[in-house]
């Protein structure tokens, strides 16, 4: 029987199925004619008893996807006799036809007596799009045809929902309170360690940075966690992942449970507001017609609820920055958030305008954009709601270029500076919003080349004084510029050629508080990037790309180099949020050397972790310290008192781990020894055979083996001395 089936079956699909029916993907040898479909017992429930972890989402989609989204139901129509049917139909068509296009045969009024009698007093109207149906519902619900006929218009899809409403009110079940996970648990690490996340290959892994043990301590590991990148929220509470359906956030100290999902198909980029209240997601879609521009969709979500607060759609041109000239493409972030943790305003640049939005209403501030002709670039102060913006020269050079500071929401221009023969401008805010540096590239008289100067605004002082800084050698090219976070100093890499100079300036001078002074110029450094410690005072001069990863750790208070190092091919440098450690990484822009190194702030290499296909290294940001500035100063003054406790802990931890290490090693050696002993026994047993193979030549080999044994033992002795010697290497 079984044989016969096997022989018959392959032909069956061809004979039974018409040509257009695709063959079943898996050929199962079942004779369907013998199967009684009714006898199959399926497990209970829609999901056959298999729980899906996305059940919530599934339900939502089911509700909206019945396919009747463009039909509305109109109730409370007059009941009319068949003679007046056509007249009523005309009236209804007139009312509802204004709102959208009613489909052919899209209006249907049921009648009694099998479609011949009086109307039943309601109608179905099918529009071409769900949007039209939605508008119709909004506009005509409650429409008074006459005194006794007030329309009740509903979406067809909603009916099922209304049907489900129980007739009697049942008091809602009060769920017992389950305490949510403490999202900030990771901040209470008893050893004060910081976390970081790395992306490599298909894996994402979160670690504690355990400098004391000289290795990372794994926290959470997951493969295929995200489809492109991961991103911490600005205060470190959440980790965001990107998926085809949208973005998701995960949180907690150890567990990384999923907290919220943000539905945005094909999302490409995301951006959190500084206070973590809002999330902006972005996607662009290739147009169906290649001559059209790309379509861009932006959503603003409420982080906690996952609800869309506002949606922006348009062609890429509408979101491209760069004034009239138009720099191609959309620059990210499209929406820039005003400083501070309140998340009150966000803004984007448009043609001849800057649109500032209020988060309270999610609409334009005062219902109109800020008109600025030819505006090219804008930036928010990191702490206040002050905009700085740059307008290039206009009118063929008759209107000077200008930089201005505008306060929001008053729209008052706090300060303006006109600039002449400008080729380009770049703005740099200091992290506490005290200073603004504007790098201005100007044409020389011949207009053939440019030179660079700086305009320095003291934003927090009265009338916002501006100071002009020019380099000693005006023709030096500016390679990099960076403010000291929370500080008054800034560093510039300048010069041409392979060994530029680095200068450090202060906004204060020893005598006169309000003057820029140069602290030092370091000649001929192999550096092209500046990385200040987040607490200031220390800076890393990094020579990335062409300089092959040269690093110099510099103390700006003492004006001295603490250490030099190299992380060959390094592409990225990141300070941890506390300013204690520096991570340098080689990401997969290079094929080789992928992985990262962790350094102490003073330039000591602590450990390395090579990983192939290394994409991202991100420290988990920390929220700002709750200590007042005075308290912090007090602690740093009495550091010795506090540090003693930690030094003891360090020593204990070190001893503990080295004891564990030793134990582990001893175990390994024992295992190896027993393995060797077993081998030796067998080897001994085979001795006679071996000699036989060599025509009875007495084997010196065995003697050699004896000697070796002695030497092996000697090494064992060395191993045991580890306790007293610690870790010593060649």
């Amino acid at each position: 029987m079984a044989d016969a089936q096997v022989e018959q079956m392959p032909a069956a699909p061809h004979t039974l199925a018409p040509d257009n029916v695709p063959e079943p993907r898996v050929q199962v040898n079942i004779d369907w004619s013998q199967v009684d479909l009714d006898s199959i017992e399926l497990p209970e429930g829609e999901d056959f008893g298999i729980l899906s972890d996305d059940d919530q989402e599934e339900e939502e989609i089911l509700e909206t996807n019945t396919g009747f989204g463009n039909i509305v139901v109109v109730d409370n129509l007059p009941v009319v006799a068949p003679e007046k049917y056509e007249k009523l139909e005309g009236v209804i068509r007139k009312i509802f036809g204004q709102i959208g296009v009613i489909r052919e045969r899209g209006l249907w009024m049921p009648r009694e007596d099998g479609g011949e009698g009086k109307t039943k007093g309601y109608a179905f109207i099918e529009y071409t799009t769900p949007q039209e149906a939605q508008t119709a519902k909004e506009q005509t619900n409650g429409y008074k045809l006459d005194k006794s006929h007030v329309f009740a218009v509903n979406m067809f899809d909603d009916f099922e929902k209304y049907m489900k409403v129980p007739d009697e009110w049942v008091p809602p079940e009060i769920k017992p309170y389950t305490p949510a996970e403490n999202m900030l648990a990771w901040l209470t690490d008893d050893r004060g360690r910081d976390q970081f996340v790395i992306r490599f290959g298909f894996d994402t892994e979160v670690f504690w940075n355990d400098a004391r043990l000289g290795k990372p301590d794994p926290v959470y590991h997951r493969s295929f966690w995200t489809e492109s990148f991961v991103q911490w929220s600005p205060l470190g509470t959440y980790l965001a992942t990107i998926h085809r359906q949208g973005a998701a956030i995960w949180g907690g100290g150890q567990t990384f449970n999923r907290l919220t999902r943000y539905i945005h198909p094909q999302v490409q980029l995301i951006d959190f507001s500084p206070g973590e209240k809002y999330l902006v997601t972005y996607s662009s879609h290739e147009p169906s017609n290649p001559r059209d521009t790309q379509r861009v969709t932006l959503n603003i979500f409420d982080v906690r609820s996952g609800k869309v607060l506002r949606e922006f759609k348009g062609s890429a041109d509408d979101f491209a920055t760069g004034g009239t000239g138009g720099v191609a493409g959309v620059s990210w972030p499209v929406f820039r958030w005003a400083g501070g943790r309140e998340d009150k305003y966000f803004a984007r640049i448009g043609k001849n305008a800057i649109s500032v939005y209020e988060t309270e209403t999610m609409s334009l501030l005062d219902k109109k954009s800020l008109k600025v002709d030819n505006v090219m670039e804008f930036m928010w102060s990191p702490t206040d709601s002050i905009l700085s913006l740059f307008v290039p020269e206009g009118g063929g050079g008759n209107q000077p270029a200008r930089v201005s500071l505008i306060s929001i929401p008053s729209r008052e221009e706090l300060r303006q500076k006109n600039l002449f023969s400008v080729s380009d401008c770049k703005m740099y805010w200091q992290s506490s919003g005290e200073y603004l540096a504007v790098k201005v590239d100007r044409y020389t008289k011949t207009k053939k080349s440019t030179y660079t100067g700086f305009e320095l605004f003291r934003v927090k002082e009265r009338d916002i004084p501006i100071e002009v800084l020019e380099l000693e050698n005006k023709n030096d090219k500016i390679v990099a510029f960076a403010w000291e976070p929370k500080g008054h100093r800034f560093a510039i890499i300048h010069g041409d050629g392979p060994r530029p100079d680095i200068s450090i300036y202060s906004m204060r001078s020893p005598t006169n508080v309000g003057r820029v002074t140069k602290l030092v110029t370091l000649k001929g450094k192999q550096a092209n990037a500046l990385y200040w410690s987040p607490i200031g005072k220390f800076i890393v001069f990094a020579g990335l790309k062409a300089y092959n990863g040269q690093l110099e750790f510099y103390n700006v208070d003492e004006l001295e180099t603490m250490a030099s190092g190299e992380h060959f091919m390094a592409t990225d440098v990141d300070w941890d949020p506390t300013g204690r450690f520096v991570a340098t990484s080689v990401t997969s822009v290079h094929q080789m050397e992928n992985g990262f190194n962790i350094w102490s702030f003073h330039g000591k290499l602590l450990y390395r972790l090579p990983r192939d296909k290394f994409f991202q290294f991100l420290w988990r940001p920390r929220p700002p310290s709750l200590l007042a500035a005075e308290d912090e100063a007090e602690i740093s003054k009495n550091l010795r008192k506090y540090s003693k406790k930690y030094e003891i802990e360090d020593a204990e931890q070190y001893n503990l781990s080295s004891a564990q290490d030793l134990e582990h090693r001893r175990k390994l050696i024992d295992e190896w020894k027993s393995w060797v002993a077993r081998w030796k026994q067998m080897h001994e047993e085979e001795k006679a055979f071996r000699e036989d193979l060599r025509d009875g030549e007495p084997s010196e080999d065995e003697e050699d083996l004896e000697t070796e044994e002695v030497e092996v033992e000697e090494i064992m002795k060395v191993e045991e001395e580890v306790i007293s010697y610690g870790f010593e290497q060649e």
Partner: protein
Amino acid sequence: MRPILLKGHERPLTFLKYNRDGDLLISCAKDHNPNVWYSHNGDRLGTYRGHNGAVWCCDVSRHTERLLTGSADQSAILWDVETGAKLHSFTFESPARAVDFAEGDKLCVITTDPFIGTPSEIHVKRVEADSSRQSNESILVLRGPTGRINRAVWGPLNKTIISGGEDSIVRMWDVDTGKVIKQSDPDTGHQKAISSLAKSADGSHIITGSHDKSAKLWDIRTLEVLKTYTTERPVNAAAISPILDHVVIGGGQEASQVTMTDRRIGKFEAKFFHKIFEEEIGGVKGHFGPINALAFNPDGRSFSSGGEDGYVRIHHFDADYYHIKM
């Protein structure tokens, strides 16, 4: 530890072999002519002329009487070590790659590459004491692995042959039946081509190097993975110290990529690992191409490395080396 630089080859090195006494070092390279050197001072004793293609591998008999070399000219030649005379030439249909004398030197194993339709093969030949009676006949031919078989060595008592090659599987063959008795597990074994395979001094374990950037230590009887050493570069060569619990691993990026980048990127370093702890001890730099061959002197006091750069470097260890503490 100033190395002795041996400049006797014009093309990349492929293999290095010390004789059992450790006084001679034989080097093979792609330039057709294996050389023999005094291992203590690096003086060249002589050259074996006769091959007409790259020489991939060699082995020397227990009493340093005979040398067997496998070459891309589709032959393996048996030489008189002292005189350099060609005693016999085994010819094949395709390039010969790995060679190894069996215990007692009466048998040898020679592997051949896949070549125009011929699959790769492992040949076992009888080696006659009187070379005039030497026959070309294989007493056993093993087939099965796909791709080149880069190394094949004899197991204990000549009962087995262990082979490794481009299909990344280590196989143990029974010499009597010609069947595969054991083979490495795809999960714990190598993920990419095995480039080298070397026995420990006592023959109890073997080390394999692979392009999957790791080297592994195996029990020669059970083919169980004992240890794994991971590096950042494809491994071309690996060797086990006869006296200390150290292994040395060499390699580097693919030769075809070398000229495109900085010298330092290649990591052309011979890296020392602690055999039992699997921890890196240190490295010996010097080559400016990937390392293709490594060998320990049987006395354990020196080792030599051969690189794609055409140089052999003999390194005699400093006194410090014997007192490295872990």
